[in-house]
């Protein structure tokens, strides 16, 4: 064992990184001066240490000079520490005998004075020699994996992720807060740019998910909390009482007929009505009625209880209670979807005031064959077929001063689709679109847009709308055509607002509880914007669909499959390896004050009430060092980053 203070043969490899480092730091001088430093057995420099020949040189030198440890003076350890640890392992060294002296990001890139930058580089390298001299050889901590995934939200992204994970052969819990799976996609009429019927392509997926032996669908369930760590999560799930046994319900609809309570139907965006006991839509999965307790008159037979009386199969059970139970999973896919920005936020368009001003999802229901008008385009106020219809784009999007700064991405295409479908159904009508830009970045999107103009005579006006108001039975739209610089007034029969997509308020509490990071607009944050787009920064959490940002269906499905593949990667591992550079407790020194327990951001430390010392859950510890800094008695010492090591590093730097 290479204990601290013992003599070690240390090899130093100084990288030029082309001119990235060598342009400012005199790398040859660094290597030369370090030759005489205690314990440095070998010192050299090379143009690209990370290149194949560079790595080979390190490997050969380890063997030849019988090195005990190596230092690579190069770029930040986040980039190539792994590379050089692998090389060291090939040469028979423990990977924790490798240290990186960062002389690029914290050296050449931030300095211009060559002399001083070189001196700093030498000091940094010296301090790393001091550190590596006391480095222990460590083995990664092994943890088991629960090969079972949790998918939160069963829209198209959640269903696709669940199907892919299940097809890998792993069990999936698909949790949905609504009575049926399907999400927003099942509400859509037809999809761009192919005009496939959304229900026709969505329902097979829903059926497949419900029939899959590896998928357990939990509708009308909500996540209460998730604890644990990657590979080993414990999930508390709340089952909301449905008051109808889904296995017994035969969908005879007798209960619905007798129910006296009429409320707005959320599946049809409030354009039609449903009863308090209802089937969300004909293809709902599970195919069962649900009693919405908030609209129900009450569960006492004295009050109403009509539904229970007429149910022949006795599926209705008023005594059902809320249940909370625990499940174990190894990975979590968050696919909680989106909401539309409320029309109320745009008072000047009167969306909340005028019945004939509707948002995109409401118009989807009006266009849908299963919608409140059976697919005929009729306006909500009086059921007339609108002859002039205006579509306003970017409602709440691309407006950093008043609303959301981002582009909602799908509205250009769905508005084009709306206008086209309208023209197919009302060929003598006029469809006018007000736009800022038409963004058609997608396969066959631009062609689709051109088709709307050329074949379906949709009129596009470039400009924003300032005001929408009702006059008689017309909706007047005031806008501007910025290409001619003229004001435009349209007497429309109906107006459709392409409202911006926004984060779902309903799951905000959940995300806060899970401590999943979000960006400034509330979308889930990915681990890296380019290279890790489907992983969360929190290990074991994966992102799919619009919870991560506005997306169309193909992109959502791709991301869901990618998230499922990542879950597959995780589950394919025999054991999960955890960094061993954690902060254990030296029990003899620990006074049991518990300060470290309060500073630990990962909940990895707890006070042993009997022994009065702190215990560490090695798997939860991420080695951030907060406890080591806070510990007043020096009992918390981070592996390979002990107080002694840090002091010797500081001394090496100050000595000059």
């Amino acid at each position: 064992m290479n204990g601290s203070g013992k003599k070690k043969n240390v090899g130093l490899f100084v990288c030029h990184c082309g001119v990235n480092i060598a342009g400012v730091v005199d790398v040859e001088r660094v290597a030369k001066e370090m030759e005489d430093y205690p314990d440095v057995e070998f010192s050299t420099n090379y143009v690209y240490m990370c290149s194949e020949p560079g790595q080979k040189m390190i490997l050969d030198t380890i063997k030849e000079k019988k090195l005990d440890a190596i230092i690579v003076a190069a770029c930040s350890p986040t980039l190539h520490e792994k590379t050089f640890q692998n090389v060291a392992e090939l040469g028979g060294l423990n990977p924790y005998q490798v240290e990186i002296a960062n002389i690029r990001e914290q050296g050449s890139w931030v300095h211009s004075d060559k002399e001083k930058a070189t001196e700093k580089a030498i000091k940094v390298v010296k301090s790393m020699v001091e550190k590596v001299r006391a480095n222990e050889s460590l083995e990664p901590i092994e943890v088991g994996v629960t090969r079972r995934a949790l998918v939160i939200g069963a829209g198209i992204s959640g269903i696709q992720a669940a199907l892919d994970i299940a097809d890998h052969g792993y069990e999936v819990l698909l949790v949905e807060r609504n009575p049926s799976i399907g999400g927003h996609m099942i509400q859509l009429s037809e999809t761009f740019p192919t005009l496939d019927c959304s229900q026709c392509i969505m329902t097979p997926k829903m059926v497949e998910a419900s029939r899959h032996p590896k998928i357990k669908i939990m509708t009308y369930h909500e996540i209460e909390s998730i604890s644990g760590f990657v590979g080993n999560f414990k999930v508390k799930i709340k089952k909301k009482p449905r008051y109808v046994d889904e296995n017994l319900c035969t969908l005879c609809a007798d209960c619905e007929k007798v129910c006296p309570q009429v409320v707005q139907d959320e599946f049809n965006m409030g354009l039609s009505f449903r009863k308090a006991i209802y089937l969300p839509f004909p293809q709902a999965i599970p195919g069962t009625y649900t009693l919405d307790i908030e609209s129900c008159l009450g569960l006492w037979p004295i009050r109403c209880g009509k539904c229970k009386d007429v149910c022949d199969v006795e599926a209705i059970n008023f005594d059902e209670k809320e249940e909370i139970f625990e499940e174990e999973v190894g990975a979590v896919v968050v696919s909680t979807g989106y909401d539309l920005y409320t029309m109320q936020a745009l008072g000047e368009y009167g969306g909340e005031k005028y019945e004939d001003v509707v948002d995109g999802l409401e118009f989807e229901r009006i266009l849908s064959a299963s919608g409140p008008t059976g697919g005929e385009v009729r306006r909500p106020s009086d059921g007339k077929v609108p002859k002039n219809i205006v579509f306003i784009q970017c409602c709440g999007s691309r407006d950093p001063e008043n609303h959301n700064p981002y582009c909602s991405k799908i509205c250009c295409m769905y508005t084009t689709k709306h206008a086209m479908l309208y023209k197919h159904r009302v060929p003598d009508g006029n469809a006018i679109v007000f736009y800022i830009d038409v963004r058609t970045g997608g396969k066959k999107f631009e062609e689709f847009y051109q088709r709307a103009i050329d074949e379906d005579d949709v009129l596009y006006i470039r400009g924003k709308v300032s005001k929408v108001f009702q006059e008689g039975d017309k909706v007047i739209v005031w806008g501007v055509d910025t290409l001619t610089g003229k004001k435009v007034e349209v007497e429309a029969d109906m107006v459709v607002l392409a409202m911006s997509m926004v984060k779902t308020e309903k799951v905000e509490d959940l995300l806060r509880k899970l401590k999943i990071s979000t960006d400034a607009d509330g979308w889930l944050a990915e681990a890296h914007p380019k290279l890790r787009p489907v992983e969360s920064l929190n290990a074991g959490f994966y992102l799919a669909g619009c919870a991560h940002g506005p997306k169309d269906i193909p992109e959502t499905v791709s991301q869901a499959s990618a998230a499922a593949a990542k879950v597959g990667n995780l589950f394919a591992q025999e054991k999960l390896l955890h960094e061993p550079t954690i902060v254990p407790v030296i029990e003899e020194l620990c006074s049991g004050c518990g300060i470290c327990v309060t500073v630990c951001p990962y909940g990895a430390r707890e006070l042993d009430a009997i022994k009065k010392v702190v215990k560490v859950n090695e798997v939860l510890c991420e080695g951030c060092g907060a406890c080591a800094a806070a510990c007043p008695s020096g009992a918390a010492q981070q592996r390979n980053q002990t107080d002694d090591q840090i002091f010797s590093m500081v001394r090496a730097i100050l000595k000059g």
Partner: protein
Amino acid sequence: MRLHYYPGCTLKEKTTNLDNSTRAAMEVLGYELVEPENWTCCGAEFPLTEEKIVGLAAPTRILRQVELEGGDKVVTTCSFCFNVLKRTNEALLRDPLKHKRINTYLRDDIKIEPLTKKKTTDFPEYSGKVWVLHLMEFIKNEIGYDKVHPLLKRELKGLKVAPYYGCRLLRPAEEVGIDEPDNPHIFEEFLENLGCEVVDFPFKQECCGSYLSISLPDAASEASYQVLRSAKLNGADVIALSCPLCYYNLDRRQDRIKEMYFDFNGFPILFFTQILAWALGVDEDILGLDQHYFDPRPVLGITHKAEVAS
């Protein structure tokens, strides 16, 4: 209770009906309105050029006088005066350099008493802390409608009033806005609490033509016609407003509007304070209803018959 009140020039000349009805109504509500001594014109327009300090001198002087007299708030009814005074405060608080410059400039003011010829110099600095309130805000937030309700003497039920905000009460929203600029409610709330039936109409925030009244009178007539037409189309009996310029364009301009648009036969306009004073039982003569181009008395007269004995 004493309350600082800045009427502004128009209320002393063209629209004494706004001034008189305000005073009468506030008296019923238990307030004595005090004008700051030696007040001048507010400037009528807020100077939009950054470096134009001198345009802020007049409104700052008015606010300084209120402060000197120990007032911490000042109430206005004219939308223009409200806009200028409030924005002046905002400008001073937002820009400390501007605040300093204007105070340095105003320090050299000299006041000479007409009788004693006594000179006052070295005026203290204005802190920027006098709270500028529109009367509608004051009634809603400082008095409270629950205090107003028991004092109401006349029943206004059935009087369909269209509240007209114009531009000055709402914009620029971040500086003056007494309510959401695109979806305001404060005027509606005010009228509802007096017992009127509120008529929502889409032109309530549109421009009346404003100062185009001078340079392009027919453009102002056209703009005002659209407002009047929309209110009528939506079933209003009368338009309520708070701005003397809107009043001029919407009421006095009606003779020209009649010439320009054959379908227009006139429409009554009332200041919000006239409706308030009427509801509070103030005598008809004080309200100056005879000053209006289009006589609003018949509209109130109908309700007059339904008056509850006071």
